[in-house]
């Protein structure tokens, strides 16, 4: 009995344990050196990551409020991996930061929130998980305490997310009013295509869209990404987004199964808008983080396309893509974070001539961008191809062609950065940066992931076998 609570909730327990360890360290009187702390925390996170693969017990707890299965464990492991990588790339920035422990406490609690969110079988848990993964993030966005942009970003984030969750709550309240239950499994059978249900669905979709940065609910994204510390931006763009997409799939495929004709079309509209607007804005950005923000918006449009397949393949492809996206985006953010932490430069123009001074970092960034653009032999190609393929299964070729053409635009802006790095001349290029061990490790893992994930089809097969569609 107790064993069940331990094992099913294992991932959460581990996180809570780490959070409390950190809390004790914080409360304790001993002064730790930042570097020691960082190394030990990263070690803990590594342990956490490894532990994620053992003693996983699928099960349902609290009358189905919480459930976990192998797929969810996998998703949590992906998030754990992302967390570990984010933690590694945050090293140069955190090394000098006063509130390092708080950073970890907050970020791990948001991860905890996400874990609960993706395991939720009940709207309440889902809502709480969502809030737990949002509110501390807004605080984290403000962690560059002296920077104007940072607090602006935090403010925009907290207000927007409050608004969005208020609307979503309104939806949930009517959902409750209409069905009388908050459990996903029961909801699935009780929802039919009446106007009230669709209204509820639209509100909830709005909430999801907000978190996933789907146009036109995306507007906070760019500003927050730009203003927040790079590590937080990386976290937002990868982990937070992946987590919400995981639960979004569950909600779409189970709770709103009956509204499929409507939501397919909604997703179509939103995805088209998202891809287009994301791309159009991305081509005119100069700030690296902002640029990656818009590019990640466009990526979500593609994920929606893959998701629209409503098939086992589609689900597999989305998760597979997110894994690849995690590697690619974190590799890019790793470089940006390092450069930003050591030189304070974040603009694409600053990266001109980067290759002359930092060949390794340039290659990491370039390969990451290629992967994001979906160019072989990087894994991004496989990810994107499978996504679009699972979308194509429905035969909506307008969407496919649109997505395919937009890949050209996205290709342009990724190459623009590559061009700046490799081809453009610059009299004052960024000086040669010593890459500390931890970020180097992160980049190595990411590179390995970018290069290998595509070829190792067993990853895809494994995800496929886990998907319980």
């Amino acid at each position, binding site marked *: 009995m107790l064993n069940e609570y331990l094992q099913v909730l294992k991932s959460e327990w581990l996180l809570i344990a780490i959070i409390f360890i950190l809390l004790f360290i914080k409360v304790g009187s001993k002064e730790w050196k930042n570097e020691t702390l960082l190394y030990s925390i990263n070690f803990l996170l590594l342990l956490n990551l490894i532990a994620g693969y053992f003693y996983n017990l699928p099960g349902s707890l609290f009358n189905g409020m919480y459930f976990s299965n192998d797929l969810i464990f996998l998703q949590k492991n992906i998030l754990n991996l992302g967390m570990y990588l984010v933690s590694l790339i945050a090293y140069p920035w955190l090394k000098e930061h006063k509130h390092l422990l708080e950073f970890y406490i907050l970020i791990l609690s948001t991860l905890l929130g996400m874990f609960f969110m993706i395991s939720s079988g009940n709207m*309440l848990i889902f*809502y709480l998980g969502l809030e737990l993964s949002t*509110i501390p993030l807004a605080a984290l966005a403000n962690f560059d305490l002296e920077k104007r*942009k940072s607090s602006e970003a935090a403010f*925009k984030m907290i*207000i927007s997310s409050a608004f969005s969750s208020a609307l979503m709550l309104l939806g949930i*309240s009517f959902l409750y009013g209409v069905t009388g239950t908050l459990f996903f499994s029961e909801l699935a059978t009780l929802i039919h295509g009446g106007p009230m249900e669709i209204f509820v669905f639209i509100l909830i979709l709005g909430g999801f869209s907000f978190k996933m940065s789907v146009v036109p609910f995306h507007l906070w994204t760019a500003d927050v990404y730009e203003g927040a510390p790079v590590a937080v931006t990386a976290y937002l763009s990868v982990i937070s987004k992946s987590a919400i997409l995981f639960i979004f799939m569950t909600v779409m495929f189970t709770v709103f199964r009956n509204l499929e004709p409507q939501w397919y079309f909604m997703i179509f509209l939103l995805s088209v808008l998202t891809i287009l607007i994301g791309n159009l804005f991305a081509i005119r950005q100069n700030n690296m983080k902002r640029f990656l923000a818009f590019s990640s918006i466009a990526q979500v449009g593609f994920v929606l396309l893959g998701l629209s397949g409503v098939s086992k393949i589609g689900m597999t492809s989305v998760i597979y893509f997110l894994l690849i996206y995690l590697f690619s985006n974190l590799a890019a953010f790793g470089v940006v974070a390092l450069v930003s932490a050591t030189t304070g430069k974040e603009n694409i123009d600053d990266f001109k001539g980067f290759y002359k001074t930092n060949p390794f970092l340039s290659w990491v960034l370039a390969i990451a961008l290629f992967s994001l653009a979906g160019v072989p032999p990087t894994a991004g190609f496989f990810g994107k191809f499978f996504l679009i393929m699972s979308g194509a299964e429905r035969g909506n070729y307008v969407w496919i062609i649109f997505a395919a053409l937009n890949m050209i635009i996205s290709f342009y802006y990724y190459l623009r950065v590559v061009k700046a790095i490799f081809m453009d001349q610059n009299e004052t290029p960024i000086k040669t940066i010593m890459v500390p061990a931890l970020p180097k490790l992160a980049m190595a893992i990411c590179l390995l992931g970018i290069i290998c994930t595509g070829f190792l089809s067993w990853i895809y097969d494994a995800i496929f076998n886990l998907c319980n569609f």
Partner: protein
Amino acid sequence: MSEIPLTHILFLSTGLFFIGVYGLFTRRNMITMLMSVELMLNSVNINFVAFNKYLYPEKLDGIFFTIFVITIAAAEAAVAIAIIINLYRSHHSIDVEDASEMKY
């Protein structure tokens, strides 16, 4: 009490919600924006409570939801106010129009 139909309570909450929405859209002071959000959350709470009481009295889902929402509203308000204060330190203003440095 039973003479008041559920819909009237829902009308009330709807009105309150959109008052909050209006406030959020138009208020230029960040703190008042936050206040508008509180109004919206409260209106949702009314919904939950009303549904629970009128339609699904055998369980307490709505009531519990309300309690959690109230708590979250508190937490959210706290963090938001902290952020606003921090922002005030750097911007010396809590006019939302001034916090628009990042755009396009």
